[in-house]
């Protein structure tokens, strides 16, 4: 009975991880489309409303996305994402590693994205400085 319970728990945990992982991969694929290919119509699906507001509103955010130069965009496209669920709250930390080769050591770093659920969907709520 105990073994059955443990196995059920493991199955549920794995299932939940798989669902979250798929949603997270989808989110960052859309994020890539917004930032690299300027698919600004996806902004509401990618960012929380709070983030959009704190960015000065949708228009200002779109302006900033459009400002990204083609070379920066090309370099920034080389990223790798991994994620971790918060220990206490319904929050996710996604680590985006910039793999660009032509960047200086200072710029070639990892960014920690804060991801929250809004209306049941994962969305980017901003970033936080890497520490530890």
């Amino acid at each position, binding site marked *: 009975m105990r073994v059955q319970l443990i196995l059920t728990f493991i199955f549920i945990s794995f299932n939940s991880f798989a669902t979250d992982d798929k949603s997270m991969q989808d989110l960052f694929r859309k994020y890539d489309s917004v930032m690299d290919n300027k698919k600004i119509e996806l902004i509401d699906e990618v960012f929380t409303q709070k983030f959009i507001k*704190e*960015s000065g509103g949708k228009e200002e955010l779109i302006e900033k996305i459009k400002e*990204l130069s083609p070379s*920066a965009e090309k370099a*920034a496209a080389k990223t790798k994402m991994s994620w971790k669920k918060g220990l206490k709250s319904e929050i996710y930390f996604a680590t*985006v590693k*910039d793999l660009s080769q032509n960047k200086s050591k*200072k710029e070639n770093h990892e960014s920690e994205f804060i991801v929250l659920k809004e209306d049941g969907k994962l969305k*980017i709520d901003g970033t936080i*400085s890497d520490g530890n």
Partner: protein
Amino acid sequence: MFKFFLILISSSLAFAQDCYHCGPLAQTYTQPQVPEWPIEYTEIEKINYARNPQASFCKRPIEMVDTIVLHQSETPSTDTPQRINEFHLDRGTAADPWYMIAYSYAINSPYPGATSPRMRVTEGRPLDIVGAHAGSNVFVPMDSEQQKMYDDGKITCGKENGEFKVDPTLIKNGKIKANVTTIGLVVIGNYSPFSKTNPNGYSKKNPRYPTKATQDQIARMSCQLQKKHPRMKNIKWHNYYHATSCPGTIQQYIGRIKALARNYGCEFN
């Protein structure tokens, strides 16, 4: 004549209230408000932060600290130290969670042209608890006094209500973890340009720099720390220790911050 003296005295008091960090009279005026801290330059707000009792942390004598490390939170400037604490309580792994906010002090200050948030300094992780800000895999040389404190078993690690022991992993090739000899001073905000890896950043058309008031606040806070803890002789910045965009454009103002601190009677390397 008496009237003249009355005006002179009342205007001096008014000056003291507006600018309490500017002169000796003002210092005397504000000091009694928080007796445990010498309010010569800035006031520090205290918060009763939530902590994770399951987390390990290390204690140290404050004399171990010789460096103030400047950070930016990379979050919006309106975020609070409590929110940073909540984020940090969510960090780490189940086996190795974070104890509490990683920084020892947090500065809230408005961006150029903005009026909020209110400029204030808040205490974070107590100074005698090793922070989590410079990079856990970064090791720095020790001077003889720091070496002696380590050798004497003064730096110990453990959990709340548990046993504290010397942790040999704090040392590598004769160097010690940078977090042990430093404290983190974070400016809440994002002073790096907007990019794919920094969507909270500023627009390139409108670069964001720390205001003079923010620079002054960092200088006064650093100087206040040095006055109380004379071994704190260095100001460094996050990416001095490892590759990161932190602390953004604040880094360009380190020289100026040190010069401001000099005006307050402090010398930083």
